[in-house]
């Protein structure tokens, strides 16, 4: 492996002179090596890793698996949160727009699917005379949910994105609350506090054991339960989203976002149509949130307003900030920690031989998240896996150039 030779001397005072060059610890070496790989090689190296991540709930590794709850279900939830984190990352991390009402888009996506496919909704399309088939209703409703969520992003964004950062934060917070209150109060359509039940899900893999298919919430036992299937489905959606968002980042749109985030006025002067690109970020972020909401509605087969509290918005933001805003892999890690850690402790009575009261620790999760956020902001404000902000603006070429320089230095 040649990448070991490219390790630059770290921590020396000389490195501060070339601060813009991506030299640093192990993370930077890894990043440098990865980014210099050709696209097909990246897929070749990445695929086994993705397969390993996908198989986690099936492998049931002894310490990693959860005790109190089904590991498959936890991973399915992680999938949804990862999608949300990727979407929110576009808005917060890429374009630098602080959105505290992201849960609103998640809710719109979930409710679109639920309203179209739940028998308790007045606009149900899965029954007699509806234009959705019973078996494929969820899949058909998914693009509709995405479209409607994107539209809600447009509707919210077009008047509010002219506001500055802090104002935007509070207006989006208000929007998130309004969506929840609408869901709570428009009883005839959304079922109010009772919610909508029996939401459609993909009916495939029907067997004698699982009469409703592997995606049904009824298939909850065994290693290959519905949670695992939803997790796999979400991994597919995450990969598609990652490729799409990654391409956007490297395009003119992505460079405009970085420019807006770094200095909006300068970007505007340089000819970037800031409002239009901010709106793009909002709409794209919103539609990804809509996908996640649709996943949620399908998996749980039930939506009600309490799942879309503003506190969830804050939790989503935690995932993005914890992982490292602007970095796609970072925010996925953040989402994993947010979902996994409380579930890890749930029901656990001992950890590595030390007796602990895991359920109580899981109960205290907001306390720990709060402390973690405060500590993180002091010691590592850029998140666990930070993004190289300056480099992002230049694109791929810089990594190749940097690597050549690093080789020369090492020689």
């Amino acid at each position, binding site marked *: 492996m040649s990448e070991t030779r490219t390790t630059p001397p770290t921590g020396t005072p000389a490195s501060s002179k070339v601060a813009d060059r991506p030299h640093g610890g192990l993370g930077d070496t890894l990043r440098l090596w990865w980014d210099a790989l050709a696209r097909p090689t990246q897929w070749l190296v990445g695929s086994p890793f993705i397969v390993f991540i996908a198989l986690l709930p099936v492998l049931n590794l002894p310490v990693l698996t959860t005790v109190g709850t089904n590991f498959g279900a936890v991973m399915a939830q992680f999938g949804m949160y990862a999608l949300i984190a990727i979407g929110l990352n576009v808005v917060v991390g890429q374009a630098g727009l*602080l959105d505290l009402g992201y849960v609103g888009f998640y809710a719109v996506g979930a409710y679109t699917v639920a309203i179209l496919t739940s028998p308790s909704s007045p606009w149900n399309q899965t029954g007699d005379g509806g234009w959705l088939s019973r078996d494929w209703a969820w899949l058909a409703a998914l693009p509709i949910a995405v479209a409607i969520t994107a539209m809600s992003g447009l509707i919210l964004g077009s*008047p509010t994105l002219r506001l500055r950062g802090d104002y935007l*934060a*509070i207006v989006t917070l*208000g929007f998130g609350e*309004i969506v929840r209150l609408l869901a709570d109060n428009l009883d005839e359509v959304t079922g109010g506090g009772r919610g909508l039940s029996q939401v459609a899900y993909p009916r495939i893999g029907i067997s004698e054991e699982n009469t409703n298919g592997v995606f049904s919430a009824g298939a909850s036992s065994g290693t290959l339960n519905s949670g695992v299937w939803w997790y796999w489905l979400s991994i597919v959606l995450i990969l598609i989203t990652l490729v799409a968002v990654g391409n956007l980042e490297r395009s003119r749109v992505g460079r405009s976002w970085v420019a807006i985030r770094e200095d909006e006025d300068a970007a505007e002067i340089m000819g970037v149509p800031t409002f239009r690109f901010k709106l793009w970020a909002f709409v794209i972020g919103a539609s990804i949130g809509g996908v996640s909401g649709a996943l949620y509605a399908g998996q749980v087969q039930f939506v009600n307003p309490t799942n879309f509290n503003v506190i969830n918005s804050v939790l989503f933001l935690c995932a993005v*900030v914890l992982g490292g805003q602007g970095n796609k892999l970072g925010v996925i890690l953040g989402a994993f920690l947010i979902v996994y850690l409380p579930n890890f402790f749930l029901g656990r009575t001992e950890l590595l031989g030390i007796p602990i009261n895991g359920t109580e620790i899981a109960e205290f999760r907001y306390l720990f998240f709060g*402390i973690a956020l405060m500590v*993180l*902001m002091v010691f590592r404000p850029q998140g666990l896996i930070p993004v190289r902000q300056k480099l992002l603006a230049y694109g791929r070429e810089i990594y190749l150039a940097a690597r050549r320089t690093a080789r020369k230095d090492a020689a």
Partner: protein
Amino acid sequence: MTGELIHALTVADPLVGFDTAALVDNFWALTVDGLTYGSVYALVAVGYTLVYGVLRLINFAHSEVFMLGMFGQYAVLMMLGFAPSGNAYNLGVTMTVVYLAIALVGGMAVSGGVAVGLERVAYRPLRKRGAQPLAFLITAIGASFVLQEFVHFILPRLTGDRLGGVNAQQPIRLVVPETQFTLFTANITNVTIIIILSALILALATDMFINRTKFGRGIRAVAQDPVTATLMGVSRERIIVLTFLIGGLLAGAAALLYTLRVPNGIIYSGGFILGIKAFCAAVLGGIGNLRGALLGGLLLGVMENYGQVLFGTEWRDVVAFVLLIAVLMVRPTGILGESLARSRA
């Protein structure tokens, strides 16, 4: 979005009621009740607005400062021997006022202490490191979680389940609402009088403090230009602590007044929505602007009450947020504009 929403609200008749008759009939009663809520919003909003003016920071945890103020005054009353039974006490005017004053001091002390502690523990390390604005906001959210969960889980353990926990506290009712006189068909109760009068006095005192005293001038100077203010001999750190202290004290006072109006509201999550509303009020009036915060609070309280009757109780919060969005569309820096420094008029 506002246009669409109002359109949807008014056209979708079976979904949302539109009761103009109720609004006209109860106009004055609603206005007075709105002013009582508005006074509380206004006092809390001052905390947001002062901190924003000086530090350009949304102190997201200010709602928890308010919440702890509610627990503070409650704890003081418990220490004075009042049992949380939910029954009303009848102590006579003088003793009630004395006990209320003690509770007020208790609430203000707790809130002020928490606000200053928050600044010390959470924000000062960030300032020393020159962190990004977003880092401050995230820290504020983190601190908000910590304070809420402290009351949720840890406080009941410390006090033997007498304070905090999942459920709201049993109210200690020192004042029972009784109609004192009628003004334009509105019944004015003793609670209303206490709330509006105290809020008015506190607001005037704060305005005087900011605009007339040496410390106030320091706050305005730092808000206007921190570097020049430091060169002129103003200690920025002291001014920041002072700002948090004033915000905290007012939040503590607001906490007592709020519990007079809503006795069942003492719960760990009780600050959250009220904090958001108060922040809305601050933005509505022009954040960073003291008089703007007071005006925004009163306006929000009144409008919310009108909207609640017009559309139904369940739309109360929607009205507040839609109002905020509508005002920001027309005046992006709030009704009275932004600057704390230029607010002295």
